C-alpha cells in the first residue's frame, strides 16, 4: 500500500503541489467495490468516509480503513454525473457516511442499506458543500 503513486494524487488536485503525509491510494471509481472487498477480506475496519470538493463538479472521496493502529486510505474522484456505488453491502455501517456525503455534496450513492433520501441533515440549503 505504500506504493502510493504520488504523481497520481498530484494529478487530481488543482493546486498541484499538495504534499501528501498520509497513506493514500488513488483508484478509479469503478474499482472501488473490488478494492473495498479485498480490504474487508483482510479484516480492516471502516474508519471514515469523507468527501472534498476539489474543483467545480469534481469531488474526491476518501475512504479510510483501519486495523489496529494502522490506517490506509483509498481515494476516488467523482462528479455529479457519476453514481458512486455504496459500500454498505460490505461495511454495513457506511450508511451514515454515505448519506452524509449525499446530503452535503449532492453525490449520488447507489444502493445504500438505509437511505435517508436526503433527509439526514435536512439542511436549509440543499447540498451546501457542492
Amino acid at each position, binding site marked *: 500500500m505504500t506504493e502510493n503513486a504520488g504523481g497520481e494524487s498530484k494529478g487530481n488536485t488543482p493546486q498541484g503541489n499538495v504534499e501528501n503525509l498520509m497513506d493514500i491510494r488513488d483508484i478509479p471509481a469503478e474499482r472501488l467495490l473490488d478494492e473495498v472487498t479485498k480490504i474487508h477480506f483482510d479484516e480492516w475496519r471502516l474508519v471514515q468516509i469523507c468527501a472534498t470538493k476539489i474543483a467545480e463538479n469534481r469531488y474526491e472521496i476518501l475512504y479510510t480503513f483501519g486495523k489496529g493502529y494502522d490506517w490506509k486510505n483509498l481515494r476516488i474522484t467523482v462528479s455529479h454525473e457519476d453514481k458512486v456505488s455504496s459500500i454498505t453491502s460490505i461495511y454495513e455501517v457506511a450508511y451514515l457516511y454515505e448519506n452524509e456525503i449525499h446530503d452535503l455534496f449532492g453525490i449520488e450513492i447507489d444502493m445504500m442499506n438505509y437511505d*435517508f*433520501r436526503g*433527509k439526514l441533515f*435536512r439542511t436549509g440549503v440543499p447540498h451546501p458543500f457542492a
Partner: protein
Amino acid sequence: MQIIEFLIFFPFVIAAILYLLGNSERVYPVRKFIVKGAAFLIMAAVIYLAVRVLRGQMVRTYLEKADTANDFVMAGELFLMCLVTFYSFRFRKILAALLSWIGTIPILWLELSGRAAEGTDHFKFDNLTVLMCLVVGIVGGFITIYAIGYIKDYHLRHPKFPERSNWFLAMLFVFLGAMFGLLFSDNLGWIYFFWEITSVCSFLLIGYNREKESIENSFKALWMNLLGGDAFMAGILYASLALHVGTLSDLQQVDNRAVPGVMIVVSLLAFAALTKSAQLPFNGWLLGAMVAPTPTSALLHSATMVKAGVYLLIRLAPLMQGTLTGVMVTLIGGFTFFAASLMAIATSDGKRVLAHSTVSNLGLIVACAGVGRPESVWAGTMLILFHAVSKSLMFMTVGAVENASGSRNIEDMHGLIVKLPRLAVVMIIGICGMYLAPFGMLVAKWAALKSYIDSGAVWLVLFLVFGTASTSFYWGKWLGKIFAVIHKSQALKDTTHNGEWQALYPLAAMVIAMCFGFPLISNYIVQPVLNQMFHTEVEPVIGGSDIAVMLLMLILVATLPVAGGIISRNRRGITDQNTRSYMSGINAGDDRHFLNAYGDAQPLYMANWYMIDLIGELKIMKPCLAIAAGILVIMLTIIIGGAI
C-alpha cells in the same frame, strides 16, 4: 303453575317454528316478529313469576308423579346420545361418543331397572330459582333480540359461511328452554337431562361455522362438558344406590356429618359444576368457544350456561361449608380467578379477554360458593347477577363493534369514543360494571372479601387481592384504549341495527339501575335466598353506612358528566386552548403523526401492554392447568377415599 311449563316448553316450540321457517330473505320480517314477541313473552313471564314468588316468599315443590315425563326424558337422553355419537363418528372424535355413552347408559339402566331413588317432587322453585330465571329470561331475551340483527350482519361480513340462521336462532331458544328446565327441576335425573341438552347445544352452536377450527373447539367443549356430565352421572348413581336420594332438595337435607357419603355426591356434582363453569383445568373449552358468533358467547358463555355450574354449586354451598370439598372448590375457584385474570392481561382479542374474564369471575363465584357462608353466598349471588348483565352487555357491544369496524381486537378500539361514540359509551358502562368501584361487581367483591376473611381462608384472600389487582390492569387498559381521543379522527358509520340497540340500551340501563338498586336487590331478592338456604334470618350482609357511602360514590360518578358538562360550557374557566399532544416536539401537524427519522410524517401508533413474555397464555397456561388438575385429582382422591 302453568307458567313453569310455559317457560320450559314455549322456547322449544318457538325453536321449532323458527327452524321450520327456513332462512330465505322473505321470512326475515316474520322471524324478527316472532323472536321479539317470544323474547318479550318470556321476559314478561319471568317477571310475572318473580313478582308472584317474591311477594309470596314461598318455596314451592310441584309435580309429584311424572311418569310420562320421565319416559320423555329418557327418550330425550337417548336421542342426545345418538346425536353425539353421530357427530363424533362423522368427525372422527370418538372420545365424545365414549364419554356420552358412559354418561347416558348407566342413567338409562338406573331408570329402567327401577333402582332410581324416588324423590318427592320433580319441580321446585324458590327465590334462587327465580333469581336465576330472571337472569336467564331477561338477559337471554335481550340476547335473542340482539341475535336477529347480529346474525344478519355476521353473514354479510362472512359470506363464506353457509347461512343457517334459522337453525342458529332455533338453537338459542332450545337452549333457553333447557336452561329453564334445569333451573326448575329438582329431580337429579332431570337436571342431568337438561344439563346434557345445554352441553350439546353449546357444542352445536360453537360448531356453527363448520370450519376446521370451530369443529375442533366444539368437540373440545363437548368432551369437557360430557366429562362433567359423567361425574354428574356418577353422583346420581351413588346418591340413588347408596343414599337413596333422588332430588336436590333431599340431598340438601342430608346431614353431612352423619352421612359422610353425601360428600362424595357433592364432590362429584361439584366437579361437574366446575367443568360447566369452565374452571381451571377445563377453561379451554370456553376460550375455544369464542369462535362462535357473538350471541352464542354472550348467552351461553357468559350469562347463562356457565352460570348453571355455579348455580349448582350455590345450591350445594351449605353442604360444602367447612368441608374438604369446600376447600377444593374454593382453591380451584380462587386460583382460577387469579390465573385467568393474569392471562387476560396478555390477550388483545376482545372476545378472548372477555372469555378469560368470565372464567376469572366465575372462579370468584365458585370460591364464594365453596366457602359456603351466608355472606359468601350473598356475594356469589350478587356476582352472578351483576356479572350476567355486564358481561353479556360487553359481549354484545364487542360484537357490534366488530360488525361496525371489522375488528374485535382491543387495539383497534383505539379512540372508539370518537369513532363509535354510542357503542363506546355502552362499552364503558359495561367495563365499569365489571370492575370499577361504585358499580355492582365491586360491592359483591367487598362482601366476598369479607366472607373469605371470616372463613379464615388465607389463600383465598391472597388470590382475591392479587387477582383484583390484575383485573384492574386489563380492564383499565381496555378502558384507556376506548378513551383515547385522536385528533381529527372521524366517526365511523355505526352499522349497529335497531334490534341490537334494543338489547344494548336496556342492558346498559340495567347495569346502572342495578348499581343504584343494589340495596333493594339485596333486600328483596338475595336476602330471602339466604334465609331459605340457611333456614335462619341471615343478617343483612352490607351495613347501612356502607350502602350510604357506596351510593355517595355512585352519585359522584353520576354527577361527574354533569359537572364535566358545566366545565366544558364554561371552558374559559378552566381551560383555554387546545394544543397538540406532547411528542418530543416533532408532531407533524396533528396529534397523529410525527416526523420520523426519514423526515416524513409517520403515523403514531400506541399499543397497550401485554407482557406476553411474562404471563402470556403460551407461557403460563400449561403450568396453571397442571396445578389446577393436580389440586382436583388430589383433593378428589382424598375426599372420596376418605368418605369410603
